[in-house]
């Protein structure tokens, strides 16, 4: 019987198998990297129906975060302000600006402005906003320097690993409650040390068990 395979066939087969394993492994690694929330979710900057600039309002004008987002330290949910909040000023300020057309319409009809949510968590995560703000986690820890953003974008991956990183070692992100909305706060001394002292004083122990967030 004549041979079916050449003498080099075994070597070729092994090389081919090795190449397939390597290709699949490399492909998996690349895909895993690209699909990681760091790549996939950070930098998300949806176009808002009204060109509202946080840089102008919170940065240049210095309006405190809590003026508009007044539920963040009282509720599980960080509410988007209603149109009336905008109109507190805008009935007098730039009351004719074409950029505010939609806001005025909303004020007249009572239909909310369809703002697009930027920081979205999956529905299987129970995130309590006030719990974080009340213990002294600043807005900047999760949302970045919103006071410098013309358009709000997501700066952190909001992945589970990222949440856990802080829950396991939160000291650097804990500050005195009065500075929570001071996005440019620079403490005298090591923020981690200040945070550690505050944690001890207030008895802050962030949970890291499954049911803390997944109920």
């Amino acid at each position, binding site marked *: 019987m004549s041979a079916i*395979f050449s003498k080099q066939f075994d070597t070729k087969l092994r090389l081919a198998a090795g190449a397939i394993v390597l290709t699949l492994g490399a492909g998996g690694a690349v895909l895993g990297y690209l699909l990681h929330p760091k790549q996939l979710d950070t930098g998300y900057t949806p176009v808002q129906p009204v060109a509202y600039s946080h840089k102008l309002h919170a940065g240049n004008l210095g309006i405190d975060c809590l003026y508009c987002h007044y539920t963040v330290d009282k509720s599980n949910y960080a509410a988007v302000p209603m149109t009336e909040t905008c109109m507190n000023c805008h009935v007098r300020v730039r009351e004719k600006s074409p950029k505010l057309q939609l806001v005025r319409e909303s004020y007249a009809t009572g239909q909310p402005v369809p703002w697009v949510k930027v920081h979205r968590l999956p529905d299987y995560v129970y995130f309590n906003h006030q719990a974080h703000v009340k213990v002294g986690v600043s807005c900047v820890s999760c949302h970045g320097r919103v006071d410098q953003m013309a358009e709000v974008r997501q700066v952190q991956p909001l*992945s589970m690993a990222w949440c856990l990183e802080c829950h396991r070692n939160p000291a650097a992100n804990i500050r005195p409650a009065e500075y929570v909305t001071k996005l440019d706060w620079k403490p005298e001394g090591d923020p981690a040390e200040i945070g550690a002292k505050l944690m001890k004083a207030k008895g802050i122990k962030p949970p890291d068990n499954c049911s803390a967030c997944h109920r």
Partner: protein
Amino acid sequence: MADLAIDPRTELNPPLVTGGATYSSVTDQISAITEGKPPKQWYVVMGVAIPLAMMLFGCLAYLVANGIGVWGNNSPVGWGWDITNFVWWIGIGHAGTLISAILFLFRQKWRTSINRAAEAMTLFAVACAGIYPLFHTGRPWRAIYWLFPMPNELLTMWQNFRSPLMWDVFAVSTYATVSALFWFVGLVPDLATLRDRATNPVRKTIFGILSLGWRGSASQWRHYELAYLILAGLSTPLVLSVHSIVSFDFATSLMPGWHTTIFPPYFVAGAVFSGFAMVVTLMTLARWVYGLENLITIKHLENMCKVMLATGTIVGFAYGTEFFIAWYSANQYERFIFLNRAFGPYAWAYWTMISCNVIAPQFFWFKKFRTSIPAMFTLSIFINIGMWFERFVIIATSLHRDFLPSSWGYFQPTWVDIGTFVGTMGLFLTLFLLFLRFLPAIAISEVKGVLHHQINTEKGVAH
């Protein structure tokens, strides 16, 4: 004089291959199945199996798109058909491992005609079983680092190694790996036979690669038999360990009705019981369609019926023991759960289980039933149904009555539950039919091993 011609050994041990088979006729008969066109019945069954398998993929896609809420699982019945089907399929796989490993070590020669198909059945059953936990996660593409302790950037935590669900992952994946290896190693000499018979160059190349350069030399046989023995040794503990660990999913919990030490042996017996029932269901059909009556004889089938009788009786005894212990424990919750099992809202399922699992196999005490193909086929179907109900009863009855009556509920399957379950049967059948079509369904080289003994016995050569 005629009486003297009958070898008394033949009386006790009827031949395992009949019809005057020779070495070459065995090779021809089994190889021809994979070489010619499949019979009409093959197409008919395939015509049913493929749409069902497609339905499975459809249901799974629907589940991934919508979340696991499309299943009937609810609170308090958080485990429904998914784990019922998982345990059922894993159990079915056990006959293959038992036949290939334990019967091999015990030198039970009757295993030779059925081990190949039973091992294939094991692999396909494990594949079907794996679907359920994988898709119960809702995001199966993430299951690789949810189920396996794989370092990753997304979870940044380890699995709970104290959880029997974690042990289950290892038990089942080890089982699948060892079974696949065992099956493949056993196939090598037969694949070489198919390679040597092949006339089509593509077929020759494919079987040439798969047979790993087998030439059938004495040294190759020596290595092969040693490898086979080692794999049989590795598989043997798996027959007992896999279903023991599956039973730990329940036994280590504190649920009344689950928290019992009887679970591991009782689950293993049930697994072997259901596995043999599935082998009988499939083999009676395969031997009829392919005319393999001379290789899979009544003797083989009768032996399997005896195994079903033994394991079925063990299972029945376990049911009784559970009730006794529930009474003897004097624990009101334990007593309630068992009375509720037999007379509560799931009584219909409980009595289906008892009739199929305890009463049905008792017919096998009679040789008439053990040697009648229609009887054993019907009874094996009943046992398959009964063993599915056993898992359903255990899971649903313990969960649907929580400790507080305010959290009492009832499980009802949705169309996705039903579609997925029937779909896995389609997938299983599709894979099994492809196996029958393309690979030698009976171990040619092993059958020749018993034939050698038989031919010599017939010739009167002393051993």
